[in-house]
């Protein structure tokens, strides 16, 4: 399986600021996804990061709040914009591929605390 790294691993941020989270994979993958896990909760899909085009967002998530980039097949970023304490969560990227394997592998996550 692919080796996935995320930066930063954790951060404490002030209300109203933005944080960009990076996801790097050691091999080319077909699909990359971003999930949010609020404290004590399960994972919720934010969006699918599409290479070379705009991300596909799930219901309840918008590009202005969570802009995503995917410039190539091994890298993606998620920005959490204009943060509030309700954004305090673990943010995880996952990958599938190359090709359609149906199995997703997850990065170690970024633990974000907003004060």
């Amino acid at each position, binding site marked *: 399986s692919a080796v996935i790294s995320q930066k930063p691993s954790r951060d404490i941020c002030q209300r109203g600021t933005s944080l960009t989270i990076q996801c790097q994979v050691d091999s080319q993958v077909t699909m990359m*996804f971003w999930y949010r896990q609020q404290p004590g909760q399960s994972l919720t899909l934010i969006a699918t990061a599409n290479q070379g085009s705009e991300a596909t967002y799930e219901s309840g998530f918008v590009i202005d709040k969570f802009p995503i980039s995917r410039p190539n097949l091994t890298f993606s970023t998620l920005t959490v914009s204009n943060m509030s304490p309700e954004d305090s969560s673990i943010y995880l990227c996952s990958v599938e591929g190359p090709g359609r394997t149906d199995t997703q592998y997850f990065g170690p996550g970024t633990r974000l605390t907003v004060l």
Partner: protein
Amino acid sequence: SQQGEEDPQALSIQEGENATMNCSYKTSINNLQWYRQNSGRGLVHLILIRSNEREKHSGRLRVTLDTSKKSSSLLITASRAADTASYFCATTPEETSGSRLTFGEGTQLTVNP
């Protein structure tokens, strides 16, 4: 809303015992996967079972799938303290494109030494 519901929400057993966790879902699926998460870290993929499969094994893990009841179970045999973690099922609904996963609420398993 979450596709899957898991029970129990929390399970505490002694080392050496078996642990069974259940997952139910609402719509037809392409496949169902089980993941483990240790203390808020990243998820570790355990096993994938496709909609045309009924049972699958991997080491001490046994997964069953009953599409008529829209349910799955994960059995961990001869549990160890290191198995202490949260376990999530995740489904790929049949009507969705791509491989978007919908997660259940998870079961917190504690294995006491």
